[in-house]
């Protein structure tokens, strides 16, 4: 079903793109990098989703068995999709992705349970939006379960506005570019 999605008129940002290095609230050295499409990174991301707590799934993703996880990752880790990963050494701690949807992009972010509430999600989101803006992305939307207040709060803090609150999942949207830099 397609319809005209509403986005804020004003541009939010700029956001700093990856690489971003920081120490999280648990004292771990975390590095956020754009996914390099290597086999090694792919396997690390797949391992993260194998470990993922099913209770933190959102609208059926990540899928819960390995075969479906890999099918899903084949779609979002390639082609026109933009992906950033938060690394704790060789271990993927979080992953955020922008998937093309006509002229817009749909966003999703997942942080492994052991790395939640450590400030990684906020930086991962900002890193992805920075990477998106650098890559020419202008409008981004996401859906979130309305009861998931921690996530809604995070998205609002970053600059997302509620664009549709009439269905099961709440939809939020942000504008990160205004088309002024088409030549770049």
């Amino acid at each position, binding site marked *: *079903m397609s319809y005209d999605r509403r986005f804020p008129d004003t541009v939010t940002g700029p956001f700093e793109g990856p690489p971003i290095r920081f120490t999280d609230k648990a004292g771990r050295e975390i590095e956020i990098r754009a996914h390099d499409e290597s086999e090694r990174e792919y396997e690390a991301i797949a391992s993260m989703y194998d470990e993922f707590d099913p209770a933190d799934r*959102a*609208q*059926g*993703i990540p899928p819960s068995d390995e075969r479906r996880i890999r099918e*899903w990752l084949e*779609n*979002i880790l390639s082609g026109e999709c933009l992906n950033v990963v938060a690394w704790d050494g060789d271990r993927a701690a979080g992953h955020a*992705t922008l*998937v*093309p*949807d006509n002229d817009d992009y*749909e*966003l*999703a972010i997942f942080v492994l349970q052991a790395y939640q509430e450590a400030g990684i999600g906020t930086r991962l989101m900002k890193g992805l939006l920075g990477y998106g803006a650098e890559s020419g992305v202008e409008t981004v939307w996401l*859906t979130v379960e309305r009861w998931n207040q921690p996530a809604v709060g995070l998205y609002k803090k970053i600059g997302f506005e509620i664009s549709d609150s009439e*269905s*099961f*999942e709440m939809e939020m949207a942000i504008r990160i570019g205004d088309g002024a830099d088409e030549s770049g």
Partner: protein
Amino acid sequence: MRILVGVGASDGSLRALEQTVERAVEAGDELTVAIIEDDSPDRSTDEIESRVEAALDSGTVDAEVRHVDDEPGSELVTIAESEGFDRIVLSGGTTSPMGKIKIGSIAEFVLLNSHVSVTLIR
């Protein structure tokens, strides 16, 4: 069982019908198809009708075909409740570009309002 299956323009909707027909053949369900007219650009009502006929023929099932238009969700619930249906079947859950499952407004209305059991086909 008396089954009311709602069919719109989407591919998922037609797959849901095909599965329901298969099941009806096995279980001896009595089927009524409600074609949802929602001015979708995907398929015209005529196209949906011919797809429905083809699905019914493939299972050699005889089913009444009718139409719901103004408020499809509300009409489906009214028909099911007032005419003694046992179950409403809908395609339930398209996916976003990301792969997130989404429930459309018709399925949502039916789920929240129907006193008759509802099956969402994925």
